[in-house]
């Protein structure tokens, strides 16, 4: 397995970006403050209970928020977690640029597991439809095992999708990364139980109780920078399966599909081959919030082709060790 270390900076570096951000911060809503305190509590439990924690960092808004909260939790000390990105090889260039800049400015440690490497040496085969989102599971589980990560922190929220609604905040995974919904541990009060056998690990979801609207309201209040593709811009796109896709290294229009220039934004960042743009004129956070309230279309329903495979698709992938 090849893992590239994009940036390795001395961890004693104190960073300036966080202080810049927080000088402007003003979360005043009591319920956002409650959610922030809860997330910080969870992240500190991870640092207190595990030896090798890692944050899954895709530069999507939820993982950006997890990183922001984690840095607040351990301020003024450096982040006691490293970052891991499972790169499908079909990422938006703007997102990779953002990722590398945040890592460099924050003096963070990022590992990238490239799906391409698994395809190259035959551990994975490309799917006929070219979609690589489902291929992330194996590199993720392999990397967790190889690096002996014992806590894997993700940005999933319970309101995203129905099978997630039952996920614990500390969710035990077996040595194959699998999740058994019938064998979840009880999780009472704020007593998170991180005990696990050798080879097992715990997935941790500090944003469990946040909704999409909470995330955006918090991003606005804390003035958190996101990859530009979350905001309205002009882009060449073509329509496939009811979604606007952007051509790239992964491929482009086939047959009768034609490129059109549209004013769009993305609601999630992911594999370019299956992450659709939505037409939007929302150029800032406030406009995005208003758009979310107005459209009333779920994030995954609108933009992730692979989730439309079926109602139980997410649950099946989680059993296999997907995020």
């Amino acid at each position: 397995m090849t893992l590239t270390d994009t940036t390795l900076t001395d961890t004693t570096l104190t960073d300036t970006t966080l202080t810049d951000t927080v000088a402007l911060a003003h979360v005043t809503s009591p319920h956002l403050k409650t959610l922030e305190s809860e997330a910080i509590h969870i992240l500190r439990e991870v640092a207190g209970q595990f030896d090798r924690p890692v944050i899954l960092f895709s530069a999507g808004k939820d993982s950006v928020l997890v990183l922001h909260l984690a840095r607040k939790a351990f301020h003024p000390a450096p982040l006691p977690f490293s970052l891991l990105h499972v790169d499908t090889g079909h990422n938006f260039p703007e997102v990779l640029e953002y990722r590398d800049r945040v890592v460099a400015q924050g003096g963070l440690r990022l590992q990238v597991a490239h799906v391409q490497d698994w395809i190259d040496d035959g551990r994975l085969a490309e799917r006929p439809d070219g979609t690589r989102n489902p291929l992330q599971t194996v590199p993720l589980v392999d990397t967790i095992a190889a690096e002996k990560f014992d806590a894997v922190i993700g940005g999933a929220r319970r309101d995203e999708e129905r099978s997630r609604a039952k996920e614990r905040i500390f969710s035990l995974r077996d040595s194959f990364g699998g999740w058994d919904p019938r064998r979840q541990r009880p999780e009472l009060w704020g007593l998170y139980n991180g005990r696990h056998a050798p080879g097992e690990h715990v997935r941790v979801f500090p944003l469990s109780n946040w909704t999409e609207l909470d995330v955006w309201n918090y991003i606005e209040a804390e003035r958190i920078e996101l990859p530009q593709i979350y905001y309205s811009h002009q882009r060449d796109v073509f329509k496939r399966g009811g979604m606007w896709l952007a051509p790239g290294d992964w491929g482009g229009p086939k047959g009768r599909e034609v490129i059109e220039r549209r004013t769009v934004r993305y609601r999630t960042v992911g594999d370019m081959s299956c992450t659709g743009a939505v037409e939007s004129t929302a150029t800032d956070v406030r406009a995005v919030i208003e758009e979310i309230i107005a459209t009333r279309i779920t994030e995954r329903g609108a933009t992730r082709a692979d989730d439309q495979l079926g109602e139980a698709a997410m649950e099946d992938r989680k059993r296999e060790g997907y995020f």
Partner: protein
Amino acid sequence: MSTAAPTDVTDVDDTPVDVTSNNVTPVDVHELAAELTTSRRLLRFATAGSVDDGKSTLVGRLLHDSKSVLSDTLDAVERTSQARGLDTLDLSLLVDGLRAEREQGITIDVAYRYFATPARTFILADTPGHVQYTRNTVTGASTADLVVILTDARTGVVNQTRRHAAVAALLGVPHLLLAVNKIDLVDYDQQVFDAIAAEFSAYAVELGIPEVTAIPISALHGDNVVTRSERIGWYTGPSVLEHLENVDLADQSTTEAVRFPVQYVIRPRSDELPDYRGYAGRVTAGTVRPGDEIVVLPSGGRSAVQSIDTADGPRDLARAGESVTLLLEDDLDLSRGDLISGVADAPEPVTEFGATITLLAERPLRRGARALLRYGTSTTRVIVTSIDGLLDIDSLTYRPAPDALALNDIAKVTLRTADALPVEDYRPGGAVGSLLIIEP
């Protein structure tokens, strides 16, 4: 459920923000966005009831009528309802989560739902109905401000109703709401409702629950769920949602002495901050200010709070529920597991104490069992030295205890720990006085 067809957002209209074409009542988006961003408090509540009492329908209706359901989700529910030959929407389909549950048609695990109204933000722990899943009721209600207990108007108060109320009482949940459902099936009869409400209130008094609100509802038809029903003219109280929006959320804990379990020690060891040593944690009770005298437990070392630090800058005070970092006047070398406490009524560290526990594991817990005990942020070894009484839900008395406890049993036990722990009485919400026994 069938595969959902792709939702084509781009075909809705040329303007991406078009509320009318999604069958949503036109609203002023700026206003609604402003409303949903303003200061609101969070209410955590749990729902409990026997199978088929209509819990899923109630929750689905709350989400649906408070406009928290997104249009593509609703489309899927509509298609499935039609496929099953139903002429109305089966709102329970909104909340039946996992595939196994869908196949068996029952809810088997706590599911969390989120919705907001201009008045409040809600986190709902939807807990399963079967007797064997009482452990989920415990999980769901552990941090709840309120529990909604559902009962079928035709059967009234049953064993499960009592069990759920007893669990809520043990957990110190401040508010109980009894929803008497399917009132349409008893012809909206006031006498039926009054009798059930009276029987339940009497039981609640025995449990020491200060406040019970009973509401007659029809989850299926929407009576008294979000809006008050004209069909139930004899009832003048609030609807379920109105009650959730207005129930008193008192800050009981602000007058108490401070408790602060240390989660993690923050030591940057950088050139700018060579000696910084902060204790990271969440205030679990009381209010802390710089200058406050404190005692560290179990060691007993004394000091004072030098400052309260956060990433947003120093603070003049921190209240219960807030995650902050405390810096102390003296170098006491605390670590994870220590408790920082106010000096007034600080708990005495002990190695033997009594506890009321409920068994959440399949494996029986025997007298003499050795396990790990988690209290606050500390973990130590424990022996269950005796089982002192088993709670009988009907009589609310403790019966002579067996040698072993089974799943869902609620019992009094005596515990002996390897390390002294500053245990104290349980307080509502469980931030203080709660513990876990973890079998290795």
